[in-house]
């Protein structure tokens, strides 16, 4: 580490994504968060990349063969923004997190870094916004941005762009950070994803 050019530690995707396991247990024990056992990997389609074009054929072997085989089920969807989603479902949260990382890693290793956008986990949470208000059973998401290597919460209040509960997201972000999750420090990077197809 240089005197004039100290750099922050660069985390590997797994270093960050795996913190979700500890965080989930802590928050679930406090009764604030219930993961919905579903996650989605969002990536852009690049027709010149053979791996991405044929990726649907590769997923089964990635998920169900070899040492890290899981029982995670998957579905591929295309959204209105011309992006592709791999939606994963697993009753075992550890396996869900592990499968999400594995699929993301396969896409990231075989395509341009910019193709891989985010891994998104679905959650239900109870959040106390301030002394006078709280919300329970709120459908929310925890977004992991591959370019920022950090999570942030997203609580949409509608399907239109811009419809989100920023106050509740701020409180949830603090709780997630306190529970050990690596949270994006710059609020301006907490971009939403509206119309999540799961």
């Amino acid at each position, binding site marked *: 580490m240089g005197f004039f050019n100290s750099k922050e530690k660069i985390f590997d995707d797994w270093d960050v994504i795996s913190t979700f396991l500890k965080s989930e247990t802590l928050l679930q024990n406090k009764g604030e968060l219930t993961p919905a056992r579903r996650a989605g990997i*969002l990536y852009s389609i690049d027709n010149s990349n053979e791996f991405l074009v044929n990726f649907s054929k590769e997923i089964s072997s990635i998920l169900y063969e070899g040492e890290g085989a899981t029982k995670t089920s998957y579905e591929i969807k295309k959204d209105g*923004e011309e992006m592709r989603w791999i939606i994963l479902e697993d009753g075992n949260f550890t396996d869900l997190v592990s499968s999400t990382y594995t699929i993301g890693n396969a896409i990231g290793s075989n395509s341009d870094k910019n193709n891989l956008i985010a891994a998104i986990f679905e959650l239900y949470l109870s959040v106390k916004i301030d002394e006078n208000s709280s919300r329970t059973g709120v459908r929310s998401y925890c977004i992991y941005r591959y370019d920022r290597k950090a999570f942030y919460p997203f609580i949409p209040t509608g399907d239109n762009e811009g419809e989100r509960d920023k106050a509740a997201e701020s409180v949830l972000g603090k709780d997630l950070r306190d529970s050990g999750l690596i949270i994006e420090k710059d609020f301006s990077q907490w971009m939403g994803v509206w119309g999540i197809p799961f």
Partner: protein
Amino acid sequence: MNKSVKSFKTDPKLVTRMYFTMFMLGVLYAAFSFLLMRLGVPIIFVAIIVGIFAIIQYSMSDKMVLKSTGAKEVSQKEEPELHDIVGMLASRYEMPMPKIAIIDSDVPNAFATGRNPNRSLIAVTTGIQKRLNKKELTAVIGHELAHIVNGDIKVLAMGNFFVTLTGFLMQMFFFNMLFGGMGRRREGGGAMMIAYFATIIVYFIGQLLVLALTRYREYGADHKGAEICGDPGSLADALAKISGTVSNIPDQDLRKLQTANAFLIISASLRGSGGLNLFSTHPSVEERIRRLRDLETRM
């Protein structure tokens, strides 16, 4: 320092920048004084006048602040919790108990003033008391007391003295050029013109350096306050609450950023959001929060 105080490694880059800025201020004003003396400007006379004003302002700052902000000094009986917080932090800083004042305003804010720890005053608004919890308020007061302990009021009073002096000279030269004077009349016009333009440049650079110094001292107070409270996270939370940074959460869809990145040389996600802050007295709240979160992870 109290044993319960957590000690963080000082940021060497920040310390270097702070001393470099102070050094540059010294060089700037020394060169400027030399130039004015060579041009025959009676700078000592002007410096004495401005100096007297600055000393009055500096020595009476606590009383002036109380008057100008409408702050009301409060007793232990009137504000027991606030007194307890300030008392606890003052003993950690090993400084005398400062005076405590309340400003009846819904705008969340707090400040410290006083030329030394023996004559210090800390003021908070009713707005900040309403919005912050005890931990966050403690962190904010820890930050304000750090300004006193770090001698920021003295350093900035000195920096501002030179800026005020240059501003005064600038006006003086301007009116001199218009109406003549200083016993030199027309024959000194060229020198006066040089002195006037030099003053404008020095005034501008001096302002920028003092503003930079102010921003560095803010980071320093954040650091020291975090050490004293042992809780950088609460100061970050307080800053987020007070500044309304939640409103920085964008309304934009992440997929649009990805599409935009395809047309940019530098990824939009990698570009800073603060913009040029050369003219700000405080560093960006986002950057302060980022630094405090970093301290938090190092605890």
